[in-house]
Every structure is written in C-alpha cells, then in structure tokens.
C-alpha cells in the first residue's frame, strides 16, 4: 500500500469517528451549534482527503453531505433526525469503503453506484425538511399511511412517495395531472382522494380540480424530483427506505423465490422438445415473479436473456440470467449487512507524543546500563576483585530488570486503543437492526475508555456485531410479549467493557427472554450437534454452551439478520483466535449475558514451563488452574482414556509425553505430577514429568511451513538459548 493511501486511511478513520461523535451528540441535543460545526469540519476535511487520493465517489458523497450540513448551519431550526440519520449512513458507507480500501488497496468497484444512491438520500432528506416547513401545500400528515395501505405487500425496500395536489385551476389550463403521474417511471401504486370532503355530484364543478394524488415508485428520489420540477410547489416528495420485505410477506417472498427456482429446473430438463415454448414460459414467469418482488433491474435482464435464448435456441443464457437474479436476491443490500471485508490489521497507528517520550527516556537509561556492563567487563579484565564486580553486576541487573519491565509496559501502551473506537459504531447499528425486526431496543455502552491492544480492538467489531444482532433478534422479545410479561416495551442491551486483571472483559447483556435450554437440547439433537447420551449427561450450562457449537442456530425462522449461515460458532472461533474465551449465562425470562474475555495484549503471555521426556514446554498460565500430585492408585482407565477424581469431580487425564509422541521417563514415579487446566469450558489434567517456573514471554507465532501446525500457540527463547514451545491447551482437549 502506498504511503499516501496509508496516511489517508488513518486520517479518514479518525475523521469518521469524530464526525460520528458529533452527529450522535447532535441527536441528543439538536441545537448544539458547536457539535454541528465540528461535524461540518470533519466532513469537509474528509472530503479533502478523498480528493487527494482521487477517490471520486467518496468526494462526491461527502460533498453532498457537506452541503446538507452547510444548509443546517445557516438555518436556525433544530436539526431533523432523518437528516442526521442520512449523514450517519453516509459515514457508515465511508467506513465500509475504507475497510475495502485497506483490504484491497483500491477503491471498491461498487462505490459509484453506492455514492449515487447515498447522494439521492442526502438530497432527499433535506427536501423533506424544507417541505415540512413550507406552507405551500395544505397539510395532510397521514398520506404516507394511506399509501402504505394502498401499496399493500409492495410496501418494502427503497421507495419514493409523491403527494401531488394539482392547482384547482389545472383543468382550465388544459393540464391533465394523470398524464404527469402516468409518466413517472417504475410506478408501484396510485391513490386518489378529494381535497374537499363536502363535494357532491349536485354541487360540483367538473372543471375545478379537487384531487389529491398520491403515488409510490421504486425510482430514487432525484429523477422523480426532476420529473415533477414544474409542480414543485404543489408536490411533496419523500424518500422511503424500508426493510427489504416486511415480516408478514416472507411467505410471498419465499413463494416467489421458489417459483423462480422452479423455472430453472424446468429449463434444465433434458431434451429439446418444446424448447422455445419452455424458454418463453420460464422467462415470462420469472420476469413476473421478479417484478412482483420489485426487482425491476433483474426483470429487464431476464427479458433480454430470454430473447437471446430464443434466438440461439439455447437455454443457457436465460438459465444463467435467472440464476444471477436469484443470487442477487439473496444478497440484497441492507444497511446492517457488513460486507465480508477481510480483517486486515492497520499498518499504521497514531500514538500520543507522551508515550513516545517515555520510550525515548527509557532508551537513554538503558544506554547507561549498557555502559555500566561494559565497565564491569573491563574491571574483570583488569583482574579486579571478582566479588566486587559481581556485586556491581547484580546491581546493574536489577536496574536492567526494572527498565526492561518499564520498557515492556511503555511499548504495550503504544499499541493500545480504547474500546470506544469499536463501541461507538454500535448504537446506530443496533437501532437499525431492531427497526428491521419491529422492535425498539436501546443500547447502553459502559466502560468505553477501557483499553486493549489495537489488534484486538480492531478484530472485535465482527464478533460483537454478531452477538448484538443475536441479542436483538432472538434475545429481546416482541413488544407484545414483553408487555405481557411485565417488561417495558423497549428492550435494553448493555455493552460493557472492563479490565479484569490481565484480561479485557466485554459483556453483552440483554433483558430478553433468556435461552430456552430445552429447545437448545432439542435442536442440538435434531441437528446432530451432540449425541443423545452426551446431551443427557450435560448440565444446563453445558447445554447452553452448545449454541457456540458449529452447525447450530436456534432461530426458528431464519431472518435477514441472524440467519446468514454464520452462527455463534464464528464468534467463538474469532475470539479464540485472539487468545480469548466466550461464555454465556442466561436466566429464563430475565435475559442473557455473553462474556468475551480477551487478553489485554497479544504480545505478552504468561506461561508456566513443564518438562516431559527431558524437553521443556510452556503452558499459557491463563489456562492453568493449579498443580497437584495424584497417586497412581487414584488414576483409573475410562474407555480409551484415563481419569481421576478430584473434589467429587471426574477429571480426564492426558499424558503429555504420550500425546506429544515423546519417550516416557521410565523411572515411573509413584505419583503423577498433574497440571490442572481449563479448556473449552471444562477442566482437564495434563500429566508431566517435572514442573518448571513461571515467566512472561513474548510469544512468536509459528510461521512459514509450521504456520498451520495445530496445538502450538507459539515459541519463545529461554535464557539459555533453548526454544520453548508453548502449547495450545484448548486444542489438546478438543
């Protein structure tokens, strides 16, 4: 990645964050001029930055947003929330572009289309604002409601709503308001009403227009505004961004989709018999079904392919077009979908000057120690009293030790970021997710100032989003159900971060229905996640933990939000890759708490060394519970393994030398030295030959040919130059 782009990404992210902060503050206090100015400056600078790297789509979009903010600045009115929403959506889009740029070093190909859409939304949001304040039209607040009724099951996705009240003199002037409405592209529905209820056949003047015409189209707002430009005074136009399809229409949607799927099957049937007829029928049916789904772009595509297929007397072009349409349908854009951009750790980091200064100071002190060691060596060389030199060396070592520890701390603090950087993206996303499933949920964030390693903070977004999405979608109940169980209609989700010794603990707590353990068991049984015996033997807590198992998803209805084929298992995988753990507590009717426990830093690991077969291995101290000595007579074989009993619990025992394929120390001790470790939510014992010391090490991950090696967390060098292999305990008990 070139230096410019790197700098651009770094700066842009900061500006986006700042702008989001300002906009969110404005949402709470719409009259705060200072925040408005701050947001305006951030957008302005962001636009400039996009210009430098020649990211045209981003420049255009931000320019539109800047215009909106400039208008807001010059107006005395408090800021309408829909305008803020669009500005925030614009920042969201920008963030996604930045992610894509970071992953691929270039602007995403779809940026232009997305920019057009976003600009239309931004312009539209202001229009609504202005019209609301103008008195040109007789007000009629419920017109959108009427359109919703008129549109019925077509009321989903992106729509533009028009309210047109023609001039009463229009008919005299020879105008036909219908011809204007009929000329609007991609019309969905039209509704008519009279502006004067008292009108009757007896008293009416047929040349005086008393019509109110409402229309709904799938066209974006800008072309519609353009088409109705002449009647701007008499029209009210609104951009509606609705969930892809309301829940009640899922059945229709599924029906239409399966109808299209059936066409592909029909086409692919062997034989050339009635080929043209089949093409015609499959093409027409698919086009109609797609039209019904509001996918006009795909309709044109399919119709074109049908003509080609007929001309070539081949089914392929059409079948391919229909399949394309199906595929696009399943990946429909929705604002909470985060494009699966590969997580790439940022290559540059902003660091507080004070922290750098601390490093410089430490370097100076280390140089002093270096000189002192050199001096001691010279004294030895000059045959001075070794005892005196040794004493001086010990002092220097103590000093060196202190400095090394300080240096470690200082370096770590350079790499930390507050959780705020990831937390702040959620309040809005949660609101959108909740809106999509017809719930109201507020998100409370706590402990945003808690710091963690930058790599960890950056990697947290995806798993946290997934857990939050689950909390909103499955945890929080419908408003009716909440009311009937005496809870407030608005659900609460708390996102909490705190430092917990060497770890960072993040909790996501909802006040929803909790997890139904019986259903978890039933689903696990049905999907073959765990065997019948295992299920019976499990405690409720262990059964709940199955939610994190691969191939598990409890949602009875697969929704757009959570049912994407990635379950909570992806959360656990991501967190464990970062060296952390995920646990879950749930109380029926009270809610669920998901806890992510992550190491504060990826760099330092505390390990305990053990020896087997004359080799030293490290075990991460986070996994070690205690070390005990177990008499041989206590160890009993169970199945193909061995186990022993400790405090009324049966604990599986793994012989480390056997597992690692080493030769057992034949001088079989009469008692086994066992390290008790916790792994994958359970406790196990590792039998070793000798217990070693504890130390803090900087773990080097396995690289190159050994990169894919399982069971090894990494390596480090011991004081005597030997390589210490640190084992991944989780992997051994899997």
């Amino acid at each position, binding site marked *: 990645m070139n230096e410019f782009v790197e700098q651009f990404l770094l700066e842009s992210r900061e500006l986006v964050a700042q702008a989001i902060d300002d906009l969110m503050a404005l949402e709470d206090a719409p009259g705060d001029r200072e925040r408005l100015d701050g947001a305006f400056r951030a957008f302005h600078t962001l636009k400039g930055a996009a210009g430098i790297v020649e990211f045209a789509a981003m420049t255009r979009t931000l320019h539109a947003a800047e215009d909106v903010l400039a208008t807001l600045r010059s107006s005395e009115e408090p800021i309408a929330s829909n305008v803020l929403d669009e500005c925030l959506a614009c920042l969201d889009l920008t963030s996604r572009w930045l992610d894509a740029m970071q992953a691929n070093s270039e602007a995403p190909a779809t940026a232009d289309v997305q920019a057009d859409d976003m600009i239309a939304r931004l312009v539209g949001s202001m229009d609504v604002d202005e019209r609301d304040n103008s008195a040109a039209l007789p007000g009629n607040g419920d017109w959108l409601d009427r359109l919703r009724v008129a549109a019925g099951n077509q009321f989903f996705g992106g729509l533009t709503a028009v309210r047109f009240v023609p001039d009463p003199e229009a008919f005299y002037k020879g105008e036909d308001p219908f011809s204007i*409405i009929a000329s609007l592209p991609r019309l969905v*529905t039209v509704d008519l009403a009279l502006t004067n209820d008292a009108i009757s056949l007896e008293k009416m003047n047929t040349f005086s227009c008393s*019509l109110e015409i409402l229309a709904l189209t799938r066209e974006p707002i800008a072309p519609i505004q353009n088409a109705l430009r002449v009647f701007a005074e008499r029209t009210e136009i609104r951009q509606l961004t609705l969930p892809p399809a309301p829940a009640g229409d899922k059945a229709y949607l599924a029906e239409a989709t399966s109808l299209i799927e059936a066409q592909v099957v029909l086409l692919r049937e062997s034989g050339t018999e009635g080929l043209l007829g089949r093409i015609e029928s499959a093409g027409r049916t698919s086009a109609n079904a797609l039209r019904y789904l509001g996918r006009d772009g795909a309709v044109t595509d399919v119709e074109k392919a049908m003509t080609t297929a007929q001309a070539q007397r081949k089914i392929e072009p059409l079948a391919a077009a229909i399949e394309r349409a199906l595929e696009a349908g399943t990946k429909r854009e929705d604002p909470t979908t985060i494009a699966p951009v590969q997580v790439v750790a940022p290559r540059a980091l902003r660091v507080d000057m004070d922290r750098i200064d601390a490093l410089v100071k430490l370097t100076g002190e280390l140089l002093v120690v270096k000189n002192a060691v050199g001096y001691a060596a010279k004294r030895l060389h000059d045959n001075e009293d070794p005892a005196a030199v040794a004493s001086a060396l010990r002092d220097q070592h103590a000093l060196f030790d202190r400095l090394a520890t300080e240096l470690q701390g200082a370096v770590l603090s350079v790499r930390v970021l507050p959780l705020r950087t990831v937390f702040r993206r959620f309040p809005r996303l949660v609101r959108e997710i909740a809106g999509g499933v017809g719930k109201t949920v507020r998100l409370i964030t706590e402990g945003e100032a808690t710091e963690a390693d930058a790599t960890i903070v950056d990697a947290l977004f995806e798993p946290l989003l997934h857990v939050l999405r689950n909390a909103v979608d499955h945890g929080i109940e419908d408003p009716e159900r909440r009311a009937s169980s005496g809870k407030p209609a608005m659900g609460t989700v708390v996102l909490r971060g705190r430092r917990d010794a060497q770890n960072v603990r993040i909790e996501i707590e909802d006040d929803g229905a909790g997890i139904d353990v019986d259903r978890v068991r039933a689903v696990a049984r049905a999907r073959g996640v765990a065997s019948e015996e295992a299920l019976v033997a499990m405690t409720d807590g262990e059964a709940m933990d199955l939610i994190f198992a691969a191939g598990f998803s409890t949602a009875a209805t697969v929704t757009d939000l959570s049912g994407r084929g990635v379950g909570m298992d992806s959360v656990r995988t991501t967190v464990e890759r970062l060296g952390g753990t995920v646990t879950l507590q749930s109380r029926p009717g009270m809610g669920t708490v998901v806890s992510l426990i992550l190491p504060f830093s990826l760099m330092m690991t505390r390990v305990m060394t053990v020896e087997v077969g004359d080799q030293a291995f490290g075990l991460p101290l986070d996994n070690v519970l205690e070390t005990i000595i177990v008499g041989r007579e206590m160890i009993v074989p169970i199945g193909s393994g061995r186990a022993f009993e400790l405090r009324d619990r049966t604990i599986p025992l793994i012989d480390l030398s056997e597992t690692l394929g080493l030769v057992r120390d034949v001088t079989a001790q009469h008692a086994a030295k066992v390290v008790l470790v916790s792994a994958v939510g359970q406790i196990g014992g590792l039998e070793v030959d000798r217990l070693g010391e504890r130390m803090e090490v900087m773990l080097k991950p396995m690289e190159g040919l050994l990169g894919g090696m399982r069971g090894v967390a990494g390596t480090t060098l011991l004081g005597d130059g030997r390589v210490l292999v640190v084992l991944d305990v989780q992997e051994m008990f899997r």
Partner: protein
Amino acid sequence: MTVVLHDENTIRLIGACPAEDGETLLQHLLTNPKARVDWRGCQSAHAAVVQVLLVSGRPLQGPPAGEFLRQFISPALDRSGRQV
C-alpha cells in the same frame, strides 16, 4: 361522443375521454341516479372525468381497457369506494 348513455342503468365510457367528458358524465349521473358506469371500453380518461367518478362513488364495471387506468386508477377508485 365518448360518454354514452347505454340505458338507464348503464353509462359507458369509450376510448379516450377528455376533460370535457367530465361534465357530460356528471349530467348523465345526475339524471340516472341508479346507473352504473361501464368503462371496459375506456382507453384513457382525463383526471377531470375520474374526479367525477370518485365523487359519485357509483359502482364501476371494469376492468378498463387502458393500462394506466386498469393498473393504478381502478384499484384507487375501488379503495375510495370501500371507504365511503
């Protein structure tokens, strides 16, 4: 003539009905209070004509021939009829 009184029970709208037809339609409706309107032959209708239909709330015999009328205006009139 695009608005025709077929019999005392039926008023027919035929072809393209311009604004002036609104007045003719109104007169027919007023003199034949029980008449229904048959617009199956109607290709297009000026908003003034449809406004008369909307005010009258009379039953319509359809669907009309014109695409825009059939797809958008007819359902809108149906809905307003239900509300009355």
